C-alpha cells in the first residue's frame, strides 16, 4: 500500500491492466486524481511495460530458426512415412497369408490346389526330362517329352510368325 492512502500497489497494478470490477476501477480513478504517489506508481508501471515491450520487440528471432523448424517437421514426416510403410507392408503380408489359407481351405481352393499340383508335377517332369537328356538319351519317356515340347514350341513360333505377318500386311 502506498503511504498515506488506502489503495494498494497490487490494486494499482490490476487497475493498470484493466482488471477489477467497474466500481473498484471508478474508485481508483477518482483517487488517482488527487494522489500523486499513486499516480507516480501507475506511471512507473507504464514505463516498465514500454521498456519490456521495446526490449522484446527489438529482439528478432534468428533467421535460421525457421529452417530448423522445417527440418524438424520434415524429420517427423519422414518418420511417419517410414512407420506407415513398415506397418503397411506387414499388414499386407498378413492379409495375403490369411487370404491364401482361406482359398486353400475352401472347395474352390481345393480345386485350384489340385490344378496347381498337376501343373507343378508337369513342370517338374519337363524339368527332369531336360536335365536327363544329355545323359539318358534313349532311356525313357523324357527324350520323347523333350521332342514334343520342341515341336509344340515350333508350332507356337509358326503361329506367332503367321499372326505378325498378317498384321503387317493389314497395316
Amino acid at each position, binding site marked *: 500500500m502506498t503511504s498515506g492512502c488506502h489503495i494498494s*500497489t*497490487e490494486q494499482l*497494478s*490490476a487497475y493498470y*491492466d*484493466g*482488471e477489477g470490477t467497474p466500481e473498484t476501477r471508478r474508485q481508483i480513478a477518482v483517487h488517482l486524481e488527487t494522489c500523486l504517489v499513486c499516480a507516480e506508481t501507475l506511471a*512507473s*508501471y507504464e*514505463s*516498465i*511495460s514500454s*521498456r*519490456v*515491450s*521495446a*526490449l*522484446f520487440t*527489438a*529482439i*528478432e*528471432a*534468428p*533467421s535460421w*530458426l*525457421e529452417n*530448423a*523448424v*522445417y527440418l*524438424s*517437421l520434415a524429420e*517427423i*514426416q519422414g518418420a511417419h512415412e517410414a512407420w506407415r510403410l513398415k506397418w503397411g507392408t506387414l499388414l499386407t503380408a498378413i492379409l495375403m497369408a490369411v487370404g491364401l489359407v482361406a482359398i486353400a481351405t475352401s472347395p474352390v481352393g481345393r480345386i485350384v490346389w489340385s490344378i496347381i499340383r498337376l501343373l507343378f508335377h508337369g513342370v517338374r517332369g519337363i524339368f527332369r526330362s531336360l536335365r536327363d537328356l544329355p545323359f539318358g538319351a534313349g532311356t525313357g519317356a523324357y527324350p520323347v517329352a523333350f521332342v514334343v515340347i520342341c515341336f509344340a514350341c515350333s508350332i507356337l513360333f509358326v503361329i506367332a510368325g503367321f499372326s505378325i505377318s498378317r498384321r503387317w500386311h493389314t497395316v
Partner: protein
Amino acid sequence: MGWGSGLEEQDRMLIRLAKQGDAQAFTQLVHNYKQFVWQIALGVLGDWAEAEDVTQEAFVRAYRSLPTLRTEETFPSWLATVTTRLAIDVARRKKGHRLPQSAPDEWLEDPVDRYGTIENRLLLTTLLERLSEDERAILILRELEDKSYQEIANVLQIPIGTVRSRLHNARLALKHMISSMERENES
C-alpha cells in the same frame, strides 16, 4: 500488441488447411508466428539456445496436435499456451541456470545486431535473471501478448489471484531494479 487480439483471414485459412494436413500451410504459419513463439520462449527462459529449442519443439507439438484444435480463432492462444508450458518446464528442469553463461558470443562482437543494442541485452539479462520463471511467463503474456488475468491463469493453470500478485511482484522487482540501475548510472 499481441497476436491474440484478432486473427487475419489469411491466417484463419492457413490454420484450416494445416488442420487438414497441408504441410505447406503449416510452413507459412511457422513463418508468420515464429517471432511470437520466439518472444515467449526467450521471455520465459532468458536463454537464447534454450529459447531456440523450445521454439522448435513448440512448432513440432503444434503440428502434431493441430487436428485437435477446435476453432481457428484460438490458435494464437493455444500456441502461446504450448510454448509457455514448454518453456516453464525447461526452466524448472534447469533451475539455477544463469543467463550470461548462455548468452551467445556474438553479443560482444556485434554491437547492434538482431538482438538489439548491448544495453538492451544486458538489461534484458538482468531483468529476467531476477524473476522466477512463473513471474517471467506472466510478465511476457501480459506485456507482450496482452493477455487478461483470466487467460494467463488458464495458460499457467494457476488461480487468477496468483496471477495478480505475481505480476505485481514482478513489476515491483523491476521498478526497484530500474531505479537502482538509474541511481548507479547517475553516481
